[in-house]
């Protein structure tokens, strides 16, 4: 009885040990699987990664949907447009819409005008904003906080609250429709979104070490020379970011440009907003055959031609765009 009991006990113990080992192996395996799928502290799990990618791809698609729609519609021939079977894949690569849109937009000259109107004020605005930002970052003077408040106020004031008197003055001076109408405010640090650029330069200059500048000052360099030869070169990334953002914003700004350039320079977005009218001037309705009537494909081709230069610029300078905030350090402190 006793021996039997003992035997049974040892047997049971061995069996238990075996079971325990099996269970723990199973647990390790399960842990691994769980770690692989759900993630551990060291890395993200497969399920999690897949979920994030799926979400990002889905949102990315929604995000790009208007652009894809535009690109594909603009490549449809009139027959494809009427065919309800053709949704996403046109039956042929039809470039006729682009040819027409190119002519209607008067592309070469409006493109040059757009480049002129966005690059010149942008460069000047960046230079002025950097000077102002440097003054704010490096010198103490009474009224500095008031100045900051006023700079923020210029950011908030809607353009329509200041634009009409300016327009009337320009008209009197004969500057309406001229590049000067955009250049002058930029020169006064009141260009399109100047406040943001001033703050960018303020942030940049305040985070640069002062040592070099002080050394130069001890060597007898004037303030202007310290700024030009020491501060400006070290702040080069901020200059690049400011110029490219400024170009983009000036390019896309239409409220001010329409008012200030009225009757003068025609930019691409301005020409796009009077696309229908311009089309009918070139292809008078009633005189052209049915395939040359204005349709949405031609309009979207025009829209695509409109954003094409910016797209090219974006993909060339991608890094500068997506790293702009890190490079200039605007996060709200």
């Amino acid at each position, binding site marked *: 009885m006793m021996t039997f009991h003992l035997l049974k006990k040892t047997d049971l113990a061995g069996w238990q040990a075996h079971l325990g080992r099996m269970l723990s192996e199973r647990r390790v395996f399960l842990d691994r699987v769980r770690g692989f799928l759900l993630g551990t502290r060291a890395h*993200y799990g497969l399920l999690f990664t897949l979920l*994030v990618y799926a*979400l*990002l791809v889905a949102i990315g698609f929604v*995000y*790009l949907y*208007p652009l894809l*729609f*535009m690109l594909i*519609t603009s490549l449809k021939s009139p027959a494809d447009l009427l065919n309800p079977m053709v949704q996403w894949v046109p039956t042929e690569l039809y470039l006729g819409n682009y040819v027409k849109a190119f002519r209607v937009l008067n592309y070469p000259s409006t493109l040059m005008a757009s480049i002129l109107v966005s690059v010149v004020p942008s460069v000047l605005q960046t230079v*002025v904003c950097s*000077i*102002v930002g*440097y*003054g*704010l970052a*490096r*010198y*103490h*003077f009474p009224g500095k906080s008031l100045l900051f408040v*006023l*700079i923020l106020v210029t950011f*908030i004031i*809607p353009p*329509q*609250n*200041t634009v*009409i*008197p*300016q327009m*009337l003055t320009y008209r*009197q001076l004969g500057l309406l429709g001229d590049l000067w109408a955009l250049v*002058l405010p930029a020169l*006064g*640090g*009141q260009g399109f979104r100047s406040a943001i650029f*001033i703050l960018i330069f303020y942030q940049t200059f305040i985070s640069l070490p002062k040592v070099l500048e002080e050394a130069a000052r001890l060597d007898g360099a004037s*303030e202007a020379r310290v700024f030009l030869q020491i501060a400006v070169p070290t702040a080069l990334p901020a200059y690049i970011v400011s110029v490219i953002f400024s170009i*983009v914003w000036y390019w*896309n*700004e*239409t*409220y001010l440009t329409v008012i200030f350039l009225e009757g003068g320079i025609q930019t691409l*977005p*301005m020409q796009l907003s009077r696309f229908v009218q311009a089309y009918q001037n070139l292809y008078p309705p009633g005189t052209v055959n049915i395939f040359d009537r204005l349709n*949405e494909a031609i309009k*979207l081709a025009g*829209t695509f031609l409109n*954003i094409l230069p*910016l*797209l090219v*610029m974006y993909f060339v300078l991608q890094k500068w*765009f*997506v790293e*702009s*905030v*890190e490079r200039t350090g605007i*996060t*709200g*402190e």
Partner: protein
Amino acid sequence: MSAPSRPPVSLRYRTRQALQGYGFVAIWIVGFFVFTLVPLVETFRYSLNHVLVSATGVEQTFIGWQNYTRALFTDPTLVELLIEYTLETLLSVPIIMIFSIIIALFLNLKLPLKGIFRTVFFLPVVITSGPVIRELVSQGATTVPQIAQSPLVLDFLAQLPRALRNPVEYLMTSFILILWFSGVQILIYLASLQKIDRSIYEAAAIDGASAWESFWKITLPSLSTTNIVVAVYTIITLSHFSENRLVRYIYAQTYDIKGGIGYASAMSFLYFAALVIILLIVFLTLRSRAARV
């Protein structure tokens, strides 16, 4: 030496510094007077006058606050547009902020290919100009048609009170557009996420906090000042956008025979006031939240 009687050298240094500082900012101060303050005051003067622009110059007849009373009490369009604008902005701002935070959190993970997604999400910033958006909206490219035109949504819209219907419809028809305004915001959030000290998360994890708890207790409180910056930026971008219906209405009235410059100026100031009120509401809400944390 006691503080009040400083040596003259230091005083001179301080005045010199101040003068040099003024030298750098002088150009902005001049610009502010010429291109912002004077036109602003002038616009305000227009808003109190009946303004006639002729070939020879500008004729003004003083009519007091009549332009304002007309805009607020006689013209039904402006008040309606103001209400719509306020509701749309107050609806869009949280959507843009939440969307940007979510995307920024995703892009802050250590994932391969996140650079591509960053490029995608920033792309709209580069191309959103008024006429482009107008073309895209008019061709129905900014909405997913299956959602916006489904009977369920149309039924839902029909049951809403009139004041709410337009803003909600705007949400439905321009949903992608609203998301398109998040490009810069995503970058700002991303930069502030990267500034949060990793060791706080590690300490929390050792104390047994889950990722969910860490998000609410560490990440979100660290973003409170960023929230204010993003909210203000978003409101201003939406309000200054040239396709904003109010902006377009005011612009149209400027050149209208019945409207005129004086009337448009009065409306501009009413619009400005609405914008400031929205900014204050959002700023105070976010600041009290930030103070509590």
